[in-house]
């Protein structure tokens, strides 16, 4: 199991009011899955993704990532996990402005403890070619369309060869045509063995995923475990 969480709780206390963004979530995601986390806004789906992506820490509960207990790690340990095991794609791309696509893609390797500096340029160029931007490596984000920017962001997420990719509304700021291109790229990456966990509220985007997890009011109401036709237990 790549991801295994049990009884995840995330609560915020403002004054004497405690609100639960996540209220006892348990779920597991296996290697090579393509999962869409769905739900209305305020359902807690983004909070769940942020905790899975080690950007946020749960109030209580356990999180095993690749067999390692993540809850309770220090900020520095989490930073290393994010660098080596996780890739992120954001709704608003989050590229460094006035910085070339190539440098944006190279960025994670500067924080890596293991990535060899000599391979940096070669791998970044290769990844940009793979996402179809081989001719635009020196362009800055301002000179790229939304779809192209998101592809730079995907290349950046792949830079340190992570086993899992987290995407928060990756097509939220894109037109339909670009959205389709991005989802095709995700499908292709998933076919190559990368696990993808994506948050979306659009049904047609969620269709690209092999499994949909539905979150409502901080609880998972559907898809917490992998269901397949040849898994008789899941049907009962």
């Amino acid at each position, binding site marked *: 199991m790549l991801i295994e969480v049990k009884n995840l709780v995330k609560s915020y206390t403002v004054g004497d009011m405690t609100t639960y963004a996540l209220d006892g979530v348990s779920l597991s995601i296996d290697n090579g899955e393509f999962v869409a986390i769905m739900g209305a806004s305020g359902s807690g789906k983004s909070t769940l993704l942020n905790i899975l992506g080690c950007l946020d820490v749960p109030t209580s509960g356990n999180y095993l990532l690749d067999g390692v207990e993540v809850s309770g790690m220090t900020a520095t340990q989490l930073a290393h996990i994010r*660098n080596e095991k996780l890739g992120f794609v954001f709704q608003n791309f989050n590229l460094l402005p006035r910085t070339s696509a190539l440098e944006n893609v190279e960025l994670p390797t500067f924080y890596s403890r293991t990535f060899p500096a000599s391979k940096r340029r070669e791998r970044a160029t290769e990844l940009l070619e793979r996402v179809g931007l081989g001719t635009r490596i020196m362009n800055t984000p301002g000179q790229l369309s939304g779809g192209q920017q998101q592809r730079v962001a995907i290349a950046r997420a792949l830079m340190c060869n992570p086993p899992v990719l987290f995407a928060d509304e990756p097509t939220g700021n894109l037109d339909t045509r670009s959205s389709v291109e991005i989802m095709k790229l995700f499908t292709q990456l998933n076919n190559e063995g990368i696990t993808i966990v994506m948050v979306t509220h659009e049904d047609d985007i969620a269709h690209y995923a092999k499994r949909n997890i539905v979150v409502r009011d901080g609880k998972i109401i559907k898809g917490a475990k992998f269901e397949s036709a040849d898994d008789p237990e899941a049907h009962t």
Partner: protein
Amino acid sequence: MNFFMILKVAMRAIWRNKTRSLLTALGIIVGIAAVIAVVSIGQGASTMMVSQINSMGNNMIMIFPASRNTGGVRTGSGGAQTLTAEDGQAIAEDISYFVRCVSPIVRANGQVIYQENNWATQVQGVSVDFPEVRNWNVSKGVFFDKDEQRQGSRVCVIGQTVSDNLFGENDPIGKVIRIKNMPFKVLGVMEKKGSNNFGQDQDDLIIAPYTTVKRVLQNSIFNNVNMLNVSLYSLDDTEAAKKDISALLRQRHKLGRNADDDFDLRDMAEISKTIGSVSSLMTILLTTVAAISLVVGGIGIMNIMLVSVTERTREIGLRMAIGATPLDILLQFITESILLSTVGGLIGVIFGVAGAKIVGDVQHWPILITPSSIIVSFLFSAMVGVFFGFYPAFRASRLHPIDCLRYE
């Protein structure tokens, strides 16, 4: 994250806001420039004073007659007539273990005439040991000798200023000048000394044997002198020598156990200490003012760094999301602030050195720019960067990635 990358990112951040960065660094530039200029001018002044004091004499003790108490009426300083050239000889002979040589000084003023030129100046009557006592030799001709001193010959050695005013371009050696209408033969010209600490022209004088000055110019039958200059072998013996001289003079002047000294002893160390303490006080004061301006500059840097952290919150969030540790973020912003302050410091050093040189040229002040003052102020500017950059950088490093990514 490697150092060059951190430096590159910091430089880019600074370059992106050129005007803001320049204004921020200006505080440091002004502070460092002020420190360098002040220290250079201060050090130049005190070095000059010390060298002038040293040029006044060889480990010298000066003995002046003190005031005299006659039936309750006290004269001013120098009123006592009891200090004599013989006292000087006695000091030279009896305390020879400390004393290299002694010269009495007898002063007279008068109009000096050579042909159609005349000049009012001071005549100092001294002994043949004077050049050694004062570490001051003749540049042309010769000094008078022992025989001329004993006989009270009408010979003299003149200062450069007197030479210029009486003789112009002509050679004064062997010429006869009239001092208070008495003819004196010029034997030599003293080395040029320039003005002393108090702006007095030290070359505006005539030197003659004290015997001659006493008898011919002061018309005096007494043998009291205005001052005795005692030159010691070593400056370290000053206190011990003063004690012995004092005892000897009290004995010679037959002063009772309870009588006040009828002489005053002063040494160069005392004078140079006074001047040195005045100049170092000035340096401390001005450096304090400069240091305060550096602190103000540092606060400016801190302020801008806080703004920079706020502005780049999303960037911090992204860097954290892709693996930057809190330490990486801390180093990133500290580097930016150190870069701002050291570049400011460097520009400040340039302005400071240039400023000191200009002030020195315009005011004719001696300027001493020491490498240590440059290095110290440069390091100080780097420290300002670390000190005032730490808080903003620390705040940035403690941010949570998700809060940064959500920051609008």
